[in-house]
Each structure stands twice: as structure tokens, then as C-alpha cells.
């Protein structure tokens, strides 16, 4: 039965968190039921104050085979980290 139901990705905003975070996925026939199912599956221990569900099919993911071209060029560019730069004394606390 769940084989015919679409897959949904579930995002929960925690008690103190500002952002919704991905917590997992589940099957449901439509968005409303996905919210109810997410409430039962992922917020049993008082984890959240808000739930988003997104059809998994609507998520476009980067391809693992492109990992090299996508991410490796950033490895050698340490100057992109703010800690790379020495802050002059006069500037004080930023």
C-alpha cells in the first residue's frame, strides 16, 4: 500500500531552533496526511513547533559524481574563511 503513496521529506523547527531541519522522510497519500504522519512519526518526544513536508520528487539533488568539480576547488581557497585574515589591533573587537 505504501508503495503507491508518494514519499515526503519532513522538516521540523525545534523548540529553540530558528530553522526547519530535515529529520527524515515518510509515505503519505497527500500533503495533509503527510503532516499528520510527520507529527506522529517525528514529534513524539516534543521535538518541534512547526512542520514542513515537501514531496521528495520535488527535491533536486547534486550528483555524487560531480563531487570533485563542485566542491574540491574550494579546498585550496583558505582565504575565503574569515579567520584567514589578521585583524589589526586598532580595529578592536569585531
Amino acid at each position, binding site marked *: 500500500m*505504501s508503495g503507491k503513496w508518494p514519499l515526503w521529506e519532513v522538516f521540523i523547527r525545534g523548540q529553540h531552533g530558528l530553522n526547519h531541519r530535515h529529520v527524515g522522510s515518510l*509515505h503519505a*497519500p497527500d500533503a495533509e496526511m503527510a503532516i499528520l*504522519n510527520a*507529527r506522529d*512519526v517525528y514529534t513524539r518526544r516534543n521535538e518541534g513547533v512547526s512542520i514542513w513536508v515537501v514531496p521528495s520528487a520535488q527535491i533536486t539533488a547534486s550528483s555524487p559524481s560531480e563531487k570533485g568539480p563542485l566542491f574540491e576547488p574550494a579546498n585550496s581557497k583558505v582565504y575565503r574563511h574569515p579567520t584567514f585574515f589578521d585583524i589589526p589591533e586598532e580595529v578592536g573587537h569585531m
Partner: protein
Amino acid sequence: MAQGDTTIDRTALFEFLTRMGDNSLILGHRVSEWCGLSPVLEEDIALANVALDLIGQTQLWLGLAGEVEGKGRTADNLAYLRDAGAFRNLLLVERPNGDFGQTLVRQFLFDAWHFEMLTALKKSTDARVAEIAAKAVKEVAYHLERSSDLIIRLGDGTDESRARMQAALDDQWSYTGEMFLADDADRAVAAAGIAPAPDTLRAAWEKVVKSVLSEATLTIPDGSYAHKGGKRGVHTEHLGFILAQMQFLQRAYPGTTW
């Protein structure tokens, strides 16, 4: 409702509290029988949550019942050491699980009543009753939302799901009338303002039930015959089997804990 009558007959109050507690205990046990067997994982967890909510409410109702009775019986004593004739639940909640449709229809018909009952009990003249109701009604509002949703989806679903839901409704409808029947204990707690008179809940219950069932394209069965007896301890044969399973451990190993 009359204002707090402190001379309320303890027997009537005990009777009322065991009815509330036994409804949630027996339905909670019935729903827990689905654990690990539901059609899908999501439904399995959802049903287990409902069962746990109901059993949690049982602890409060039967705990208070034991206190009111004043014979030193705890919620556990009442749940595990009474025989079928001492149980006061509605016949509806001891009905077998059947297929998923029967479980859902039973749940929905009960949830709609439970919600109205608890909403009224929030205004009880007995503060302990009002507190339990205020806590439980939040859980039950969710139970009702969920069961209504599923009734509509499956009633207004495929030919097969619709046929199963209609059969379940035809099968269980005659067990709903007992919710609204009053006896002396009901009249005593109503007169004291502790609980609503059972028949005052019928209009609100019917409104919710009719609107959901009509959206679900299901037909309310004809006939007003009501099976009754559960509230005074006259049960169907199903309760004995439930108790045999539920009470076995305490009966076989009295006082055991884990």
C-alpha cells in the same frame, strides 16, 4: 448544571470515573493490538500514539476513581484485578478490531463523543475532573482530527475502501446509542454539575458525525436500536478475551513489576 454539591454520592462519582477510565482503557488496549500489524509504518506509529494517549488518560481517571472510592485501590488494581462484570466501558469500545475500516469507524464514532464529553467536563464543578479533562481534550482533539480525515479519505476513496467503510458503519452504528443513555449514576453526577447529562451531548455529536460521514459519501444506517449494558457491567463476550490477555500477567504473578 447545579453548583458543586459536596454531598454527591461517592458511589455515583466512582461509577462515573470508572466509566471514563474503562472506556479509555479498553479502547486503548484494542488499538494497541494493531501495534506491529498496521497497513503501513506511519499508521502503526499513529495508532500506537493514540493507544498510549488513551492508556495515559486511564491512569488519571482510574487513579481518581480509586481515591474517591477510598478503599486503597490504585489505577493498576482497578485495571488488572477487576472481572468483566465490574467493567463499565461502552460496548462500542470492546468491539473487535476487524479490518482497518472497522477499527477506524469505531475510533471515529468514539472520538466524536469523547471530544464533546471532555469539552463539557472542562467545566466540571469537581476541579480534579476538570483538570483531567483539560489535559485529555487536547489529545482527543487530535484523535478526532485524524480519524475524521481517514474516514473521509477511505469513505470517498476506492470502491473497495468505500464498501469496507460502509460495512463497518452498518456494523457499529447500533453501538452508539449507549453513549447517550442515562441511569441513576449519570443523573446524580449531572445534578451535582460534575458531568453533563449524557443526552445533552447527542446534538453536537450528531452534527460532527453527520458532516464527516456525508463528506465521506457514507450513508448513516436506519434504525435507532441501541445495544446497551456495558455501562452497568453487562458485556459482550469480547471483553472476557481482552481481559484474559490484558490481565494475565498480574493474575498469574500477583504484584509483579518490571
